[in-house]
């Protein structure tokens, strides 16, 4: 059975640690991943998606205006 030497273990742990750090460093405001995400947002039906995200709130806003008028002093 082959034995794993201590320097090998240290090398693997160090490599894993530095790789993890570099991955964490990738989730940044201006990095390839961030730029790719923003590009997808901009090119992937931005206006339509905005309308979809906004729609429930616009409808509820109209309902609240209707409720305001409905409850006026008679």
């Amino acid at each position, binding site marked *: 059975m082959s034995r794993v030497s201590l320097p090998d273990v240290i090398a693997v742990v160090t490599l894993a640690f530095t790789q993890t750090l570099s991955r964490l460093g990738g989730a940044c405001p201006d990095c390839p991943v961030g730029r790719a995400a923003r590009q997808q*947002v901009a090119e992937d039906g931005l206006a339509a998606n905005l309308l979809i995200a906004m729609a429930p709130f616009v409808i509820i806003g109209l309902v609240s205006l209707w*409720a305001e008028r409905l409850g006026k002093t008679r």
Partner: protein
Amino acid sequence: MVNATHRGAIISSGILLGAGLGGFADGILLHQILQWHNMLASVRPPVDLVTMKYNMVWDGLFHAFTWLMTVAGLARLWRAGQRPDVPWSTPTFAGSLAMGWGLFNVIEGLIDHQILGIHHVHPGANQLAWDIAFLALGLALIAIGWVAIQSGRKDTTPRGGVGG
């Protein structure tokens, strides 16, 4: 003392605030803490860092609209509190909050889950059941809100007259 009967102002503010707070409950609990879904999870499933960040942007925009709704509700409530003809009724306001949250669940559920299918409450084998439960919770909140608002009909005391 003025007979305050303009309930619409407080109902309107309660609906806006309830919808805002309901939206925050959805975003914070279901999107972030439990991570059941993201805003466009069915359009671009978050399977890698780019698509996760893509969905985070849309979750952020969803929260921005929710925040605006809450601010609008606060502004309306502030204005309502300055008027002598608006009754400062706890059942009316609490009922309006419940109704706003319920309206959020029903309208967002119908548009995003049922009609467009851009995400589902809990994607997977029983996603339709989860979506229907979300709508049912919304309808229940609307019904509770309606009953509470009706129970506050007789409250006609303006803000300055509450609590002695």
